[in-house]
């Protein structure tokens, strides 16, 4: 029984560390330790229930151990601030007034596509429609929109360059080619596509460009043959 208690605690702590290392992608609306408990409780209840050779007490003891650990974690989470960030993590500011913070995205095992997806889920379709965006410690996404954000997203933007690589599917959808965007990059003083963190183009001709390590910029272009979407 002491063995069950020790083993449960070890698995709990290991899972918690792994969940914290995995970043916010793996968490959904729960604190990391809550997710760990959710993962463990179901299994702990099931195994002694279905395997008659294991005493039921083993499952009960493990569940009580989990309960004790949960209560300790909750207390630590509420009362000891330095440990709170260690156990539950901190919010990550992924968009600020300079644009996307690539470092924060990487720290949470996310990329630009994930960020754009989160923005869309939150109701923001253009990267420049928000001043700030962050992933909370429980994995939820929050954004502070610009005052006139509705005027900034009149057409659906497509990601054309994502982390230095052209998105062929989106290029096809827009009906434009690499040459057209290479010319825009040249005009903006960007020599290599690899240096581009993200480039989006919407149907009105608005281009959102952010070079790695630089502030984002927006520009307006006219598409060939008066194309719009």
């Amino acid at each position, binding site marked *: *029984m002491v*063995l069950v208690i020790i083993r449960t605690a070890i698995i709990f702590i290991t899972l918690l560390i792994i969940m914290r290392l995995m970043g916010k992608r793996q968490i959904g609306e729960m604190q990391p330790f809550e997710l760990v408990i959710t993962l463990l409780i179901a299994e702990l209840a099931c195994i002694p229930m279905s395997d008659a*050779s294991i*005493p039921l*007490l083993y499952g009960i003891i493990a569940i*009580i151990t989990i309960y004790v650990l949960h*209560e*300790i974690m909750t*207390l630590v989470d509420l009362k000891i601030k330095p440990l709170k960030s260690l156990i539950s993590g901190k919010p990550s500011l992924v968009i600020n007034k300079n644009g996307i913070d690539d470092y924060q995205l990487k720290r949470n095992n996310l990329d630009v596509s994930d960020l754009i997806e989160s923005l869309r889920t939150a109701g923001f379709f253009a990267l420049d429609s928000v001043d700030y965006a962050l992933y909370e410690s429980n994995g939820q996404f929050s954004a502070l929109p610009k005052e006139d954000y509705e005027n900034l997203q009149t057409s659906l933007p497509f990601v054309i360059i994502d982390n230095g690589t052209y998105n062929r599917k989106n290029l096809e959808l827009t009906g434009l080619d690499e040459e057209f965007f290479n010319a825009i990059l040249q005009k903006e003083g960007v020599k290599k596509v690899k240096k581009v963190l993200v480039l989006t183009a919407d149907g009105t001709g608005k281009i959102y460009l952010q070079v790695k390590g630089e502030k984002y910029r927006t520009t307006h272009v006219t598409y060939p043959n008066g194309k719009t979407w």
Partner: protein
Amino acid sequence: MAMRHALETRCCILHMVKSLTAILVAAALLIGLGIFEWFFVQNEFSGFREELETLYEKVDDGTANGEDAKAVQTAWETRKEHLHTWIPHSDISRIDDYMSETVRLVAEGNFTFALAKLEILMHLTKCLPDTYSPAIENIF
């Protein structure tokens, strides 16, 4: 406003006391059960080992009969009813198997094979309780 703040603080303290009490009660329960299990399992197996040792001596002397072996088996049946709560049933069934074979061998007067089975049983009564102790090799 001040009254509301005082009320909120009181609620907060009460909640903390409740959590701490729950942690302490549950931890005490776990530790208590752990200690009880340790002594109970050790005691049951050591009692059974003593019975086996007596039977072993009788078999070694050639004075044992089926009744003696059956008495040890009956005593084990009583012990195992309680042990089922604390240890995996597969471990208990290993002892069941060897015990049944021993009873048959002693009843038939096949003492050489009976001694071998009894040695296995005595070894099991020593090593099985140790597999539940919180030692490094058992944890990992």
